[in-house]
Every structure is written in structure tokens, then in C-alpha cells.
């Protein structure tokens, strides 16, 4: 699960990690109202207005409706004009940003609607670094990744200058040891007051990753100020969905407006569904087989409309819901059900399909391929239901059949 920058900073601040002062705003008035208290508290006449969406590249991104407005704006009007000039500038920008569609390198062409802004104090930056905590699958440990190349895309750094990326493994029983933090300080060339602050920052960040069950914490950039403060200027966090049960406060931070409505409905039903651009709906058990089914549809010349894994222990009800979700996608011209029963029994799938069709009807061709646990029972249920179903003998056979039947 992803959260917004302002939420991530709130979680970081609660764990002793310095972040800029800021206020979240859901309306133009709230954004304007945030300005004076922020300037009073920070003593800095500069404020930054940041779009809150679940995608990176906001600083360089622009709005569809206002191509001259960027996703993140530094407002310096207050330096000479005082707080009221800042308020005016915030008002004008917020009007364009709120409700606008921000297109960044990560949103795709369609962009994302901005529903909230973060109004933040300006920071005097001396140096920008990159810092992240993420899982290293090769060692089965979380690692700290750090780089002197802050504020740019880390993938690019990894590609072009891999030696500029430093790594430190986090022992789950110990956390990041002080010597590891000191080594990072040394190799990043941080000195003076900032060295102490950075070491504390990175150890707190490592602890936060473990305590909060994050998939990823990325601070890009982490900044060192002219007075040696170390601050998370940006903050991106995503969480291990499987661990959210022990963090109800974080689970509550979910912004459902960021999710695709069909994906959200599937998630709430305990299904793994991802919408794609094609025309062949797929209902499959098992993630690997679901991916391979998409691949095979593509291989025989079609385009999958979705990834859908009903999982190992799905009930007939869940299968019905899965069917409803697939048929709600107007681009679906045919459905391919591909089941190899292990933990999932073919009779359960068959019952779910029959119930779904009875409940929601079926206007597109349906190809079903069943194999594995209780397959005979499953085939019997479908046969006796009188549904118009084409049977397939193998994955490839099924993909070819649904492609033919769904051809315009």
C-alpha cells in the first residue's frame, strides 16, 4: 500500500526523523490559511506547494489543464512582498493545482487528479543526497541504500554510475549498527554537525522500516542545510500489505481515490486483479498461471484485459465476484477461465461460474479449461448447468479458442 508524502512525513517525524514543517490542504482556502502559521513557525518567508499523488516525478510534471504549472512550486513572493504576497501566490496556484490532472513520468499520459496539496516551509539546501531502505532479495535482509546523487532518479544512477550507490545490510536482530552508519557518513563525505545528525537519521530510518513493515522508504532528496541539519525534503513510503493488520493507523491512511475502482472492488473481495488494456478477460487460479495465461493470450495474437488470480482458497462467492468484475470492464470481448486445481478445487470454480452467469448474465463468449483436483465434478457441474461454454484441453488451446470466438 502506498501513502502520500504528507502522511509519510508524519510517520517519520513521529520516529525522530526531521522533516520540514508543513500543513495539508484539501481546498484553496485551507492552502491559503496554512501560509501565515507556517511562516511564523519556520521563520522562512519561502513556502513550497506540493501536489499529493501516489506517483513520483512531481517536480518536473505539469498539469494537463495548465501546462505552465508544475506539480511542485517554490513560492518566493514573500521574500520581498511579505506574507500577503505569499498568500496571493498560493491562492492562484492552488486554484489551478487542486482538481487538476498532473502528468509526470510515472503517471502515464492520463495523469492523476490532485485532490490535496501539502504546504511546506522552504529549506536552505547545502547538499542533496539519496537514502532508501528496501528489501534485498538476494540476502533476505533489508538494506540501506545511499547515494551522493540526490534529487535525481536513482534507477538512472544505478544504471550509469553503479559505484555511486552505497549499501548497508540491516541485521533484523540488531538494526543498523552505529559503525555502519559511520561508514556511510564517511563514504558520503559528510562532516561536522551534519555527520552526527545523518548517523542518527539513518539509524532511525532503518528502525522505522522494520517497525512499520515498509516495502520501501525513499528519501529523495535528503538534504543537509547550511547549518548542518539533516532533513527529509521528500518522503515516499509503501507498506507490506500482508503486515497491515498490525498497523491499523497506517491502513486508515489509504486514499481510495488513488486506486482503480475495479482493482479496489477486487481487493475488497480478497482477489488479485490488475486491469490491462486488452480485450480478453482472464480468470485464473494462481499468480504464476495467471501471468502465464496473459502471456499465452498475447503469444497467440490477443491482448489480455486483466490479470486475475482468484487465489488458492477462493469460495464460490469470490469466483462470482471475480466474474462480475471482469464483465464490468466494457472492453472485454471474451472470457477465458483457466484453472489447474491444487488447493483450489475445480468444483468450487465451476459452481462460482454457474452462479455468476445466473446472477449477472453472460454477453461474451466463455472458454473454460479445468484440470486438477475434483476436475470431473467441476466439468459435470458446468455441463449440467446448460451454460454456453466452450471447453479447452490446454492453456494454449483455450487461448486460441477464446481469441477465435471473440474476434469481431
Amino acid at each position, binding site marked *: 500500500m502506498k501513502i502520500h508524502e504528507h502522511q509519510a512525513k508524519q510517520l517519520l517525524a513521529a520516529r525522530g526523523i526531521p522533516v520540514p514543517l508543513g500543513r495539508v490542504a484539501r481546498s484553496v482556502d485551507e492552502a491559503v490559511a496554512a501560509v501565515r502559521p507556517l511562516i511564523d513557525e519556520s521563520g522562512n518567508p519561502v513556502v513550497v506547494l506540493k501536489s499529493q499523488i501516489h506517483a513520483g516525478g512531481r517536480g518536473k510534471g505539469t498539469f494537463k489543464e495548465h501546462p505552465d504549472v508544475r506539480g511542485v512550486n517554490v513560492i518566493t513572493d514573500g521574500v520581498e512582498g511579505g506574507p500577503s504576497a505569499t498568500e496571493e501566490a498560493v491562492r492562484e496556484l492552488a486554484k489551478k493545482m487542486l482538481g487538476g490532472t498532473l502528468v509526470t513520468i*510515472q503517471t502515464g499520459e492520463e495523469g492523476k487528479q490532485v485532490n490535496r496539496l501539502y504546504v511546506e516551509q522552504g529549506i536552505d539546501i547545502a547538499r542533496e543526497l539519496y537514502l532508501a531502505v528496501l*528489501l534485498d*532479495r*538476494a540476502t*533476505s*535482509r*533489508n538494506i540501506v541504500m545511499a547515494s551522493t546523487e540526490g534529487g535525481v532518479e*536513482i*534507477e538512472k544512477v*544505478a*544504471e550509469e554510475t553503479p559505484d555511486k550507490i552505497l549499501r548497508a545490510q540491516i*541485521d*533484523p*536482530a540488531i538494526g543498523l549498527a552505529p559503525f555502519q552508519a559511520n561508514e556511510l557518513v564517511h563514504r558520503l563525505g559528510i562532516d561536522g554537525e551534519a555527520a552526527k545528525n545523518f548517523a542518527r537519521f539513518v539509524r532511525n530510518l532503518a528502525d522505522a522500516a*522494520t517497525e512499520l*513493515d515498509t*516495502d520501501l522508504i525513499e528519501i529523495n532528496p535528503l538534504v543537509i542545510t547550511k547549518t548542518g541539519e539533516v532533513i527529509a525534503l521528500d518522503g515516499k513510503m509503501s507498506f*507490506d*500489505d*500482508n*503486515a497491515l*493488520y*498490525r498497523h491499523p493507523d497506517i491502513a486508515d491512511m489509504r486514499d481510495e481515490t488513488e486506486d482503480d475502482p475495479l482493482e479496489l472492488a477486487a481487493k475488497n473481495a480478497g482477489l*488479485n486483479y*490488475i486491469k*490491462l488494456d486488452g480485450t480478453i478477460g482472464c480468470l*485464473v*487460479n*494462481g*499468480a*504464476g*498461471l*495467471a*501471468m*502465464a495465461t*496473459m*502471456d*499465452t*493470450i*498475447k*503469444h497467440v495474437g490477443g491482448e*489480455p484485459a486483466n*490479470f486475475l*488470480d482468484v*487465489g*488458492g*482458497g477462493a469460495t464460490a462467492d469470490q469466483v462470482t465476484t471475480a466474474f462480475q468484475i471482469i464483465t464490468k470492464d466494457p472492453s472485454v470481448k471474451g472470457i477465458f477461465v483457466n484453472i*489447474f*486445481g*491444487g*488447493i483450489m478445487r475445480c468444483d468450487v470454480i465451476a459452481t462460482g461460474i454457474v452462479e455468476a452467469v445466473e446472477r449477472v448474465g453472460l454477453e461474451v463468449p466463455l472458454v473454460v479449461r479445468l*484440470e*486438477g*483436483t475434483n476436475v470431473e465434478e467441476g466439468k459435470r457441474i458446468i455441463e449440467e448447468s446448460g451454460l454456453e461454454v466452450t471447453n479447452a484441453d*490446454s*492453456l*494454449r*488451446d483455450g*487461448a486460441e479458442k477464446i481469441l477465435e470466438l471473440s474476434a469481431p
Partner: protein
Amino acid sequence: MSVLVDKNTRVLVQGLGKTGEFHTDKAIAYGTEMVGVVHPTRAGTEAHFDGETDHSGVPGRDDTYSVDLPIFATVKEAVEETGANASVLYVPPPFAADAIMEAVAAGLDLVVAITEGIPVADMIEAKRYLQGTNTRLIGPNCPGVITPGECKIGIMPGYIHERGRIGVISRSGTLTYEAVHQLTLLGLGQTTAVGIGGDPVNGTNFVDCLKMFEADDETEGVIMIGEIGGTAEEDAAEYVRSQMSKPVAGFIAGTTAPPGKRMGHAGAIVSGGKGTAEAKIEAMNEAGIVVAETPSDMGEAMVRALG
């Protein structure tokens, strides 16, 4: 020979909910030596299983079975009383990593974790706990391990398997069944099929299994089934290229998966341009592994690899 499990494997089941009960019954029907249950709240009682024998499994048994498995409060006690050397876990995700550690502490040779949805942080701890012990963990989030005709631990349908010459390794449950089914239809059969699981942190990886199959006299070839995410397939390809004498075929799922999206399995995600199907297929091709174009061609790919 075979790897990991055989007719001498004595299996405990940890967690006996609906799923655990269903698959314990199927395992007994197959002929697996199930010797006990660990379930603290039902300790001191017995779990009863009866039904018709699955004759695709261990040969030479009666047509029906009726078994009462003793239930224990702890793995340690169950091991002392039954002489078990393996366990299979159907424990719910919040408690599963702890159950793995309990099995490791009890000194079992093999722990097979079927459970899907264990928090990564829990698995990081469990993996650390495993270090320096002699226990091998398979999974989590996997279908299990089967040596056809001898021992079935997990949730795979037994009847699609047939004892034969090929070792199977896979991150995906249902794709394992596809491969096994095709190998059976082609008359190649399997020595052992191992589901290593779809999570980013798992107990056993491709290279571990390739080593075991390379050393196993009965195994003549290996099929490895991977998917997007991580670099375990690339590591496996490097091992095959430099160390392996036996022919290897393979398949990678997720060519059409969009980047940044988690495709069902917690570990199946292309992030930052890493873990793509293309990179894995390329590494495997370069290592001389015969890569199937679709999952329906996995058996054929194995035939070609055998030459």
C-alpha cells in the same frame, strides 16, 4: 533416489484448519507417512481421517484407509513422540513465521510452509533464525514437495504426477502442475517436484534445488519455472552455465506484466527496470537452458533439452 523427501519421510502437520485438514487427508490418501498434528488448543486429542486410497500414490496399499493422528501442543513434543523429521505448515499468516521457527528449534530436517501472506519482516527474522541450523525450509507461499509414489507434502493434486526422470523447480504452484502434467503425459515423469514459493523471502531458491538435482542419480534433467521479480533466475542460469552437467529447460511467467505492479505473488514485481521476464529469459538462453515460449510447451522444451 530423489531429493528432499522419500518413503522414509515422517511428516507432522502444523495448523489444522479447514485447508490443513483437507490436504492432510489427501496426503494420507496418497500414502504419505503423516505421523502427527501440532495444534495447541486441541492437544491430547486425535484427528481422524478415513476414505478411499489414492492409488496414484504409494503402491501396494488397501483400497481404504482409517487413521487417527495424535495432536500435540508443541513441535518438540510431537517430534519426541513420533520421530517425525519433516513438517508441513498450514498456519495462518500472522503466526506462520513463529511456527517455522518452532519447527527449526525442534530440529526437523525439512519444513514446508504452504501459508501465503506472511509479512516480509517476519520472514526476514525466520530466515535469520534458520542460519547455522541443519533445517531446510521450503516456501512459504508454495505448493510443497512431492516425490511421486513415495511422499506428497503440500497441496498439489497427486494424480497428475508419475515417478520418472525429471526434477521440477518452480516459484508458482499452478505452473508446477502444468509442467508436471505435461512431463507425465510425455512419459518423462518426475523424480521430485519442488515448489519454492512466490514470496520475495523464501527458504530455498533455484540454485539450492539445482544442486540437489545435479547430485541425484535418478534425475536426468531439470525444468525450472520462474517469474518476474528479483534475480533468482539469473543466479540459477549462472549456476547452470558454470556448474551443471544435466540438461535444463525452463519457462518464465510475466512477459506481459506491467512494471511496478505486484502480480499476485508478493515477489512478482518489476521495479526500477529490474526483474523483467526478458532479462531472465536472456540469461537462461545464454546459459543453454531451453526456454519454452508458452507454458503449454514446457514438456516439449524438456524433451528438446534432453536431446
